[in-house]
């Protein structure tokens, strides 16, 4: 999946899915270029901030991760996080954050057992 990433997260071996073009319109690297140490340094030196690469990433939502805590423990996590978030856990954006945090804790605490 093509994805725009910051230059500092770009790695040797990744392939550009879009050319890197400077403000003046000059193409620094063309589409399909495989990043190596020297062209990465060149991009950094020219102040390029973002590149588009194909990383095949499909980040999994926490709910998709295996839930490994008991129902009792999950209830405890839900209660603690509900108190921590307060009423704003019902608002759209914070509801997503709440869901992620609960899922993440359930996953981590399950692993620790």
């Amino acid at each position, binding site marked *: 999946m093509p994805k*725009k*990433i*910051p230059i*500092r*997260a770009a*790695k*040797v071996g990744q392939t550009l899915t879009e050319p890197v073009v400077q403000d003046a319109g000059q193409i620094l690297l063309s589409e399909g270029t495989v990043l190596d*140490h020297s062209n*990465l*340094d060149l991009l*950094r*030196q020219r*102040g390029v*901030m*973002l590149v588009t690469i194909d990383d095949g990433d499909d*980040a999994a*939502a*926490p709910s998709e991760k295996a839930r490994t805590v008991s129902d009792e423990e999950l209830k405890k996590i839900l209660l603690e996080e509900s*108190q*921590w*978030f*307060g009423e*704003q856990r019902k*608002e*759209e*954006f*914070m*509801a*997503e*954050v*709440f*869901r*992620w*945090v609960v899922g*993440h804790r359930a996953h981590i605490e399950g692993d620790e057992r």
Partner: protein
Amino acid sequence: MRDEVDKVIKRIHELPTLPLVYKRVSDLLRNPYTSASDVAAVISEDQVITTKLLRLVNSAHYGFSEKVETITRAVSLVGMQAVKDLVLATSVMDLFHNNDEPGAWTVVEFWRHSLAVAVASSCIAEAVEDPHVEEYFVAGLIHDIGKIVWIEYFPDEFKDVLDIADSNRLPCIEAEKQRLGFTHVRAGRLLAKRWKLPERLIETIAWHHDPRLADKHPRFPALVHVADVIANAMHLGKSGNGCVPPLAPEAMEICGLSPSDVPHLLPKIHDAYQDSILMLSFWDASEKQEIEGDLSTV
């Protein structure tokens, strides 16, 4: 209360100034003919900042493929403006060492929170394709600098603030109003003005709890505000809140974030925070000697 306010203001005026190297680099950057080696020469005169800066540039946050061995190389890779910001960040983190713990809340936890907000700010900037990723990182790192005034000079009063916030499930800023009649954003703004920080950082420090009030650079406090709420929600470090501070909906609009960004954004923040947390170790007292002896890389 009035006495407390006067005491706070007096203390802020007694706080140390930033190291000369920051002012000199700032002055150099006002000259369009300044080169990377001019900036590197000035930074290299301060050996402690040089060492810390090199460690920062070699940390996972930057992820350069090869070790950056010299300041000249660091300046050419990161850019002069970003290096100036990093000098500021290292200088500010270095100014405060008080290890008196107000309750269970330590200076290290404070810096963990600051680092979490820095990392979250840069991840959000990346997510919304804002090119000023590094500037947001530094803005996030110093957004709560006013709290350092409490830790340094008012540990007892601040312990009360933390207790009030904790037992009433209040944001720290509300407890500060109750106990001190003075908030960390007000203290931070005075400090930032005294240090003559860039306007975008002054506005971040002053308005990160109420980004609507920023008039010159509203995107900085808005983005750091969202990062602060997320870092608190994710329990990354501790900043003295008794609950997740309220999210201002207008900040979301200014940043251009939506709920559908959460499932991708939060794992990134989590991983970037874990990678960057090692950065804090070089402010640990145990490592201080090692750093000061480790000057051969300049």
